[in-house]
């Protein structure tokens, strides 16, 4: 399956990925609506990216079966089934399920690759992995 991968050594912290992501999925430039977030915890690096690694831990937590894997192995939210409870937000081991008050349903990275295409530092790429928890994907 294809998932997003991040290289902190290359990342320059320009946050372009956040802008591209929110623009792609919400048609606005707003980091709060991005499914990838770049953090500089100490203020002086190293940088850290938060995004979904497609581990699927959220699937069992969902009370309405709104979360499932698609044919390509990507964890997707079916908005029609979601009741906006945010259980998945609290139970994501990577804190990579996001929410915003403009909508009730949470949102997440589905490895669309738009951020990787536009990353000026080549810190993001879409890679092929055998299992969703492949080593090296821990963020």
């Amino acid at each position: 399956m294809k998932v997003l991968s991040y290289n902190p050594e290359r990342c320059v912290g320009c946050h372009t990925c956040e802008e591209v992501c929110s623009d792609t999925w919400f048609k606005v430039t707003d980091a709060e609506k991005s499914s990838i977030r770049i953090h500089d915890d100490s203020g002086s690096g190293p940088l850290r990216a938060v995004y979904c690694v497609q581990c699927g831990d959220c699937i069992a937590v969902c009370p309405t079966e709104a979360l499932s894997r698609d044919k390509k192995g990507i964890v997707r939210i079916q908005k029609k089934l979601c009741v906006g409870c945010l259980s998945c937000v609290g139970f994501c081991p990577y804190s990579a399920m996001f929410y915003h008050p403009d909508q009730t349903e949470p949102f997440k990275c589905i490895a669309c690759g738009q951020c990787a295409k536009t990353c000026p530092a080549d810190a993001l790429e879409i890679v092929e992995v055998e299992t969703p928890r492949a080593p090296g994907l821990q963020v």
Partner: protein
Amino acid sequence: MSEKATLHILAEFPYSVPTIERGYAGQTLYVNVGERAIQARPVTEEMKLKFTGGRGFDLWLLWHGVKDNTRWNDPENEITISSGPCAGITQYPGSGKSIAATISPLTNVVIDSNVGGHFGPYLKFAGWDAIEVQGKAARDVIVYVDGVAGQVTLYEAPADAPTDTHLLGHWLMDQFAATEEDRQLMSFVTAGSGAEHTLMGCLNFSLYDRKRKALRYKQAGRGGIGTVLRDKKIKALVVHAPPFGGDMNHPADLKRIQAAGADIHQEVREFDPVQNRMRNRGTPYLVKIMDDYDLLPVHNFQFGRHPDTPKIKGEVWEARLTQGLPDGCWYGCTVGCAHAVDGFVVRTGPYQGQTVIVDGPEYETVAGVGSNCGIFDPEAILEINFYCDTYGIDTISFGTAMAFAMECYEAGVLNAERTGGLELRFGNADAALEVLHQMARGEGFGQIFGMGIRRMKQYFIEHFGADPHFVWDIGMEAKGLEYSEYLTKESLAQQGGYGLTNKGPQHDEAWLIFMDMVNNELPTFEDKAEALHYFPMWRTWFGLCGFCKLPWNDVVHPKNKLTPQPQKIMHHVENYRQLFIGVTGREISYDDIITMSERVYNFQRVFNIRLGYGLREHDAIPYRSAGPVTVEEYESRADRYDRQLREWLGLDPETMTIHEKMAAHRRYRMERYEKLIDAVYKRRGWTERGVPTPEKLHELGIDYPDVIAVVQRHL
């Protein structure tokens, strides 16, 4: 699947389904099943401001529906059900609770019983903040609230429709749900054949479990509301909700709600696995803790621990309960304590051989029908739990009453002749089950037993020559309601927590044992009185808004212990404050929370007084709640009791007979309870007789003329 019957329509009421605004649908539904009348009634600003919702709305509607002399089986008695403005939010665990209320057949005063399941939120989504049913039907009826079509219909139930909940639920689904989506949007309130023939009937509130594709049930157990439902010949209340999402309440500020929700879900994920394991065990995690602290009710509250407790402790239930499913009783409850045993094969009674889902068991059930009755067999506990639920019988009243009957049997008050051949000794699960089946059939000893402890006491005195002192001392009821399952002998504050309640001894008002007895945080009468003011009010608030209490203190961030008042868990209180503001847009402070509850609590106290109870003498407790009744009981804790004689009373136990020692304890402990009452009444703003003063009612803004008129008769 049963064939769909053609139901005879008795009354119809079309309505336009309102949009819910800031948590309120703005109307309540009145149904008179006797007169076949259905009406919409407005929710006024006064109701919202003074009574909030939930129990507050229930009491307000009930107050105006009944007369001073209404008894439980009078047609004008009502069942009221309301969830509250915050019910139906999906973002915070435990936000789907309802409160059901009625004039209780057990206590003759108002009972309020809190319950999960989908009915409360769905009723609101269907356009009603509360339902109020009155009257008595001539034949069995079904009330159907269709929030999709916008119609309330009163149907006559066919004579062959089942009564017991696990069958009736299936029948109702077949009748009213055409598609899988319909099934998800349906909820029922039902009782059962046990509720018909006893005074301890419960209500079952259904939820459709999407993953199991099966019906599950939660119980409004306390005080016989199911008995009232069947007395009115109501087979079921049915609601069909429109499809909904995470903003069905149209909250004032979704952001606050989402932030609080994400915060608590994360706490649950991080700390529940290493704290109570509610997600794996549910409330039975408590069994071992209670035993460790000598607080688990054993053999009718005589003892606080038992060597066989490990057979029914949390680990056992974790292995027996189905794991890995999101067992919340409302969407978004990650605490998820509503577990179940799947594939249970029934061993006895009319449903022998059926494979069923057993909901729970909860701690109260394990302790009540388990340890308190000397039954330490998990399979027997599950069997009793299943039958109590489907027959519509409260497991707490059943367990506590069975423990009483068993002690009476062991003491010779009862014998095989008097029980119709049943050897009701501690530990005899088969005999307990047979009583349960008799209760459902309305036969034999089950008929006597089904009246509850208070009436059994009288019956045993009159018919079996029982020693009145003995049965009054050991029968664990107050106000006519059976005790829930905590041993209170060594915690004065918890004696008050049970005795000084409005509805009777139920732990949802105050649970102070650990603060008082284990941690010794309430050394003075004033400290205990303050706790018996704050905590009952805080806990009342959950039932005004539509919340469950468990996410407040059954998972706690470790940093909480560093806060100034860790027992209040202010971080979670703040979450709740944010949720209320987020839904209603009404800014409230921590003090406002307590005042909101005080209004409803005092109103309920006055309501009890109006019905002829609710005074000091009705806050009395059985002596076993306060101290050791029997020699055996004293001797089981002789070191502790002897030490107390020395330290508390300056007596030398070496020079006293066991009966002198017990008498000294009794005098001291009962005097202490009276002093506690004085301190608590003072703190609550009541007279020495337990009557809320007009000044207090004025301060709370509930000094309505009819309320003041009630208290003035007792000043």
